[in-house]
C-alpha cells in the first residue's frame, strides 16, 4: 500500500509496479511468440499499467479484486507472485491455477484476486456478490472490480451495478477504457454520453480520471477507497487509456487508423509519463534506468524458471471439478 500523501516514494512505487507489469507482459509475449510456450491467447495490457498500479496501491491483501481477460497487470499489482503467474501462462505445475486456467483465468485467492474472466462483463455481478458476501459476513474488506469499455454494453453491467447500488455494497467498479472492444472502436457501438453516465443513472457516484496518469489514478482511487472504507456506498471510476498492442498478442491491429497508435503511445504512455514526473521531482535518470533494468531482469528470470517447470500431473485433469460425483471417482 502507498503511504498517505503524495510523495516521491509513492511515485516511485507506482513506476516500479508499472515497469514490472510491462516487463512481465513483454516476457509473456516473448514466451508466446518467440518461444511458443504460451499456447492460448494472451491479452496484454501494455499501455494500461497506470490503472493497475494506481488502484491496487490502495488495497490490502484481504481486499478483493476481480478482473478480465486482460488482467495480468491487476493481478501482479494485487500482490501475486509473477513466477506463479508466468507458470500459469505456460500451463505448468505451480502456476497460480495449477496450469488449468491460463492467462484468461488467472487468479490468486491468496492475495484476494478472485479471478480474471473469459466472458466479458461476467465479473461485474460476481464482484457485486463478493461485496454482498463481505457485508453478510460483517467483514470490513472492500472489493474492486475492473472491466473494459466493451463490458458496459453487456446486461450484467446494468444488473451488477444496480445490485451494488440497491444493497449499498463496498465496491469500486473501474472501467479501464482502452477505447477498443477487440477490433471495434467502442464508441461506435456505445450509445449515450458514456459509461460514467450509465453508472450514475444506476445510482453510483462516478469519477472520471486520466487513465494514463498513474499519479492521478492513485490520487482519485485513493479518495474513493477511503470513502468506501469509511462506509460509503459503491462508486465508479472511469479511466481512459490506450491499448498499445493488438487485442491479443498475435493481433497486428491493422484496423486502427494509420498513425493512431504511434501518436497515442507517444502522447500517453503511462510509464514514460511517470518517468518524466519522477525526473521532474528530482530523481536521477540512473535510478529510473535501474528500476527498468531490475524489472526486466526479474521477469527474464521468471520466464526462465517458469519454462523449466514441468507440466501438471495428468490426474489434475480430473481434480477440483466437484466433491460429489467427481470425475476422480469415475471419469465417464
Amino acid at each position, binding site marked *: 500500500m502507498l503511504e498517505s500523501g503524495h510523495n516521491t516514494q509513492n511515485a516511485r512505487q507506482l513506476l516500479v509496479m508499472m515497469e514490472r507489469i510491462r516487463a512481465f507482459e513483454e516476457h509473456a509475449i516473448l514466451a508466446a511468440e518467440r518461444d511458443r510456450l504460451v499456447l492460448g491467447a494472451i491479452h496484454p495490457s501494455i499501455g494500461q499499467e497506470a490503472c493497475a498500479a494506481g488502484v491496487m496501491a490502495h488495497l490490502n491483501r484481504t481486499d478483493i479484486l476481480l478482473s478480465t481477460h486482460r488482467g495480468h497487470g491487476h493481478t501482479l499489482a494485487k500482490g501475486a507472485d509473477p513466477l506463479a503467474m508466468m507458470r500459469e501462462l505456460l500451463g505448468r505445475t505451480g502456476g497460480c491455477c495449477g496450469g488449468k486456467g491460463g492467462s484468461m483465468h488467472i487468479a490468486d485467492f491468496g492475495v484476494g484476486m478472485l479471478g480474471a474472466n473469459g466472458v466479458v462483463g*461476467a465479473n461485474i455481478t460476481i464482484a457485486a456478490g463478493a461485496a454482498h458476501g463481505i457485508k453478510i459476513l460483517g467483514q470490513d474488506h472492500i472489493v474492486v472490480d475492473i472491466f473494459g469499455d466493451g463490458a458496459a454494453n453487456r446486461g450484467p453491467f446494468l444488473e451488477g451495478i444496480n*445490485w451494488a447500488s440497491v444493497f449499498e455494497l463496498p465496491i469500486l467498479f473501474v472501467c479501464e477504457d482502452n477505447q477498443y472492444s477487440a477490433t471495434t472502436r467502442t464508441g461506435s457501438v456505445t450509445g449515450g454520453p458514456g459509461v460514467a453516465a450509465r453508472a450514475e443513472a444506476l445510482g453510483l457516484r462516478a469519477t472520471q480520471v486520466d487513465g494514463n496518469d498513474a499519479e492521478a489514478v492513485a490520487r482519485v482511487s485513493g479518495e474513493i477507497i477511503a470513502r468506501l472504507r469509511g462506509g460509503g456506498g459503491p462508486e465508479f471510476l472511469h479511466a481512459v487509456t490506450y491499448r498499445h498492442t493488438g487485442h491479443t498478442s498475435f493481433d497486428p491491429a491493422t484496423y486502427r487508423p494509420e498513425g493512431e497508435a504511434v501518436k497515442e503511445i507517444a502522447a500517453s504512455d503511462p510509464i514514460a509519463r511517470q518517468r518524466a514526473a519522477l525526473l521532474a521531482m528530482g530523481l536521477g535518470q540512473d535510478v529510473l534506468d535501474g528500476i527498468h533494468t531490475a524489472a526486466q531482469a526479474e521477469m527474464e528470470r521468471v520466464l526462465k524458471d517458469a519454462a523449466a517447470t514441468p507440466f501438471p500431473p495428468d490426474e489434475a485433469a480430473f481434480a477440483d*471439478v466437484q466433491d460429489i460425483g467427481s470425475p476422480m471417482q469415475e471419469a465417464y
Partner: protein
Amino acid sequence: MVMMTYIEAARLAVQQAMAADETVWCVGEDLGRGGVFGQYLGLQVEFGKDRIVDTPISEAAIMGAAFGAAMVGTRPIVEMRFSDFALCATDELVNQIAKARFMFGGQSRAPMVIRKPVGLWRSSAAQHSQSLESWYAHIPGLVVLCPSTPQDNYSMMKAAIACDDPVVYLEHKNIWGLEGEVDTSLEVEIGAASRRRKGEDVTIVSWSNTANLAVEAAETLAGQGIGAEVIDLRALWPWDKQMVLASVRKTGRLVVAHEAVRVGGFGAEVVATVAEHAGDALKGPVRRLGAPRSLVAYAPNLEDKMRVTADMIVTAAKETLMGAAGK
C-alpha cells in the same frame, strides 16, 4: 415423523439450516413475501432482510452475485422462481459457477443451492413449463437433484445446503401440495437412488414427479400380476447406476420415464448406460418415455399431449414384457 407437504418440507430444511449456520442465506425475487409459491413464507420475519434477500428482477445478477458471495465464504440458496427464467443466468451458472473451482486450480468453492422449479403446472404454456434437467447433468461441476416426495425434499435440501459443490435443485411445481410423512432425522446420500417399490419383472426408472406416476403405474401393474421395480433416481448427477444396473440384471426389462422432452432427455443417458453395461441382460425391448419434441401449449388438451402418464408407463412396461429385444 410428521405429515407435511413437499413445499413445507423444503421450507423446514431451509429454516433449520439457516438457524444452524449464519452463513446460509436466500436470495431471489419476492422472497420477503414468501416467494412466488410460498417456499419462503415466514422466513424473512425469522431471519431478517439481510438473510432473506429480496432482489431486483435480475436473474443474471442473482446467480452471479450469489456466486461471488459463495466464493467469499457464504452459502447462498438461489431462487430462480421458474426454471425457465434461470435461462437468463446461463452464463453465470455454466461458464462461471460450474467452472470456477477447476479453472482456478482448486482455489475456490461455490457452495450454492440453485432452486429452479420445473415442470408442467396448469396451463402455464411454453415459457413456464420446461424441464431441462438433462442440460445440467451434462455440465461438469454441477450436482443435479430432482426430489419427488416431501421426505426427499426435506432430506435432499438439507444435503444440498451442506454440500460444498453447486447444486442445481429442481423441485416440481405441480407437487408443492403433495403430502407425506417426513422423518427429520433421515439423511440422504446425494447420488443414492430410492427403490420406491420392489419387483422382479420389470425395472421402471424415473425421477421428479414422474417417479410418483411410476409408483402409481407399478400399483396398477401389481393388480395385473406384474412386479415392477420402481427406481426413483432422485439425483441425476451423480446417479445411481449400480442400483439401475443391478435391477435390470434382475428383471431383464427396462422402462425409463420422465416429463422432459424425450429427445436428448436424461432417459437417453440411462438407456445408453444400460445398453453399454447390461445390454446382454435385456430380455425385451427398452422403452423410453418422455414428452414429444414439441412445445407445451396453453390449451389444456394440447398441454396433455406433452404428458407422460401412469397409463403410458403401464403400457410401456407391458410392451417390454411382451416384445423381444429391439423391434
